[in-house]
């Protein structure tokens, strides 16, 4: 029988889904700004992308506050413990319904691979995409800030690289959302807060 534990609090779920929508929307508009396809039109795509960016910034102000006041930031401290077992599980065990090597609890809700993946997002992708995005937004102020030597081409280059990393993360993330106790248990948890875990 499965046991149910409360993992994702209300704000966390709100943060996750609103952020998900914003990131999907920013990928959609961002790749249009990059010239990959035409959907909204360049001008509208640029403006929508900018609005979404500022919305995401606001969301993050709350999210950072929340993580610090609740101490939930500790969930992202990386660990190498059981990483090998996790990898082995995804490569073999998952196919044979072997037991999950990681026991999810309220204080340790992310498995070691998740922690590493999120750390990669937080430490590599986000800084890259936020910094370059910030420079992109304030192109006109580079000179005043002492960044007159920057070139838009390089800022755009790294912004695009970060965008591709985000796209890849997004694909893997969605798939791994189905890799819980049942196919939908992770997704349900992200909606209701309650996760079904193995006894």
């Amino acid at each position, binding site marked *: 029988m499965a046991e149910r534990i409360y993992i994702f609090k209300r704000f966390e779920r709100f943060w996750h889904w609103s952020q998900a929508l914003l990131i999907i929307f920013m990928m959609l508009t961002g790749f*249009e*700004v*990059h*010239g*990959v396809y*035409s959907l*909204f*039109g*360049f*001008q*509208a795509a*640029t*403006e*929508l992308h900018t*609005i979404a960016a500022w919305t995401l910034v606001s969301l993050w102000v709350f999210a950072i506050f929340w993580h610090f006041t609740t101490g939930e930031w500790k969930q992202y401290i990386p660990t190498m413990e059981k990483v090998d077992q996790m990898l082995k599980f*995804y490569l073999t065990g*998952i*196919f*044979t*319904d072997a037991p999950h090597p990681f026991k999810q609890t309220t204080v340790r809700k992310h498995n070691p691979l998740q922690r590493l993946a999120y750390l990669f997002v937080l430490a590599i992708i986000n800084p890259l995409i936020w910094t370059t995005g910030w420079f992109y937004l304030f*192109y*006109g102020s580079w000179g005043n800030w002492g960044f007159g030597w920057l*070139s*838009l*081409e390089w800022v*755009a*280059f790294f912004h*695009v*690289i970060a*965008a*591709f990393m985000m*796209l*890849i993360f997004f*694909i*893997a993330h969605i*798939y791994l959302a*189905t890799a819980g106790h049942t196919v939908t248990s992770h997704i349900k948890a992200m909606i209701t807060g309650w996760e079904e875990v193995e006894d």
Partner: protein
Amino acid sequence: MLKFNYKGLSLAMAFVMSLGISWSVQASDAKAPDKVPTPSAAADVFGIAVDEKVKKSTADHSKFKELQVDFKDGPAVTKACISCHTEASKQLHKTKHWNWDYINADTKQHLGKKNVINNFCTSVPSNYKFCTACHIGYGWEDDKFDFTAEEKVDCLVCHDTTGGYKKLPGLAGHPNYKTMEWPPHSGKFRPPTDLKRVAQSVGKTSRATCGACHFRGGGGDAVKHGDLDSTLTNPDRHLDIHMDAKGLDFSCAKCHTSDSHEVAGSRYEPTAVDDKGTLIRGSKDERNAATCVACHGNVPHSGEFAKMNEHTDKLACQTCHIPAYARGDKHTKMTWDWSTLGEMDEQGKPKKIWGSEGKVLYDSKKGNFTYDRYVIPEYQWFNGDVEFTLADTKVDPTKVLKINSFKGSPDDGKSRIWPTKVFRGKQMFDKGNNTLVITSLSDDPKTALWKNFDINKAVEYGMQYAGRDFSGDVGWIETEMSWPITHMVAPKEDVVDCHQCHTENGRLAGIEGIYIPGANNTPLIDKLGFLAAFLTLVGVLIHGAIRYFMHKRGG
């Protein structure tokens, strides 16, 4: 809510640069100007609301005794003018409008209309009687003209408000004083110019007076510049937001301000970048006032258009705000091939061939032409430095010769991307000496090309006239001239849309040194990025498929 579908930018920009000599309005030629220019309603021509009793000017020239005489010619009028305006001629004597002579202080090149060679009618020397219909003087018919004569300054050509004053080619800057058939062989006759009426009605310059020459550069209406033609005499807001006759109704002089008859703006030393902000009244700043920034400032866009301010480090205002030139429906000349001149009809007489839109496509005197209108400009980096190919410059006939080459680059810190009209031609040159040539076109009865159709004789005489060495061997060289596009500023709803540049192969395709989001993709990164994303997708799908089948098998 924010609006996404707007097309416009917030401010339309001022028009810049270009000045010169003026030639009078042609009231008798049906079209210009639409408002009826009678002496009493004279001020109407330059857009001042006329009250019959109280005029804006403090002087009613019709009341001056000096002007209540029957003038025998133009210089007689000028004598009357300078009897009150004692310094006027001396001021004009210092200007390019008068001297057609100009030395660029930076490049030391000797320029000015009488010195440069272009790829339209090519050169002035030996053709003065014809060309000086656009000179602000009387009687410049050869190289012995007295540039110190005060009475030879033509006041009326710029200050006429009646539209009844017109200098005709061939009269060395004079209007006709007797009845004259015009155009030649047309069967139409121009009555003698009513100098008294014109003199009594003088006023400020207007789009019509400036345009009499500047709209007709290159030999006719709309020919040369592309952004200046007679449709600007009475334009609507779509043609030019500032000159809109029913709106702001700017005269040329609103931007091309003048001081002691020296008019702001120059094509010899254009201001390609003005980053000094608005030019405030009383300022001691003596920079060119005929720039967009001089009125609109460095940060002209606000609110939803604020992002546009971040384009001004690379783009001239004109690049977005003038989406096309020749927008007044008139055709501007795009090419001129002199090398085909001289072909005669069956009777051995010179001929003209007209195209479907009434434009001359071939003329035995001049060769072949092409025209266009609503033309999308060609864009170039430009820092205001222009290097001319002059009469003594050695040319390379194996290449297309840039008669005036626009300097500038993305890296020099003082260039902007400018819209330009590039006029292409094929013209005579000295094959032996590899130089451009002076050609006798109109004046000299024995050698003038347009009378004798012998290019060798015409060039030989022109070169001799100008005191130039000539090998005797005339060849044809392909040439290009660039003209900055700065007039015909569109209203904000008609500016160039973002996607016209922010797209692959957009308007600025091929311009070096700029990264345009949406236009210059990063092909390698895009390929690698999408490949990686695709492989990730394939990977998870395979993983999922294995999970599915294993699970099913395992029951």
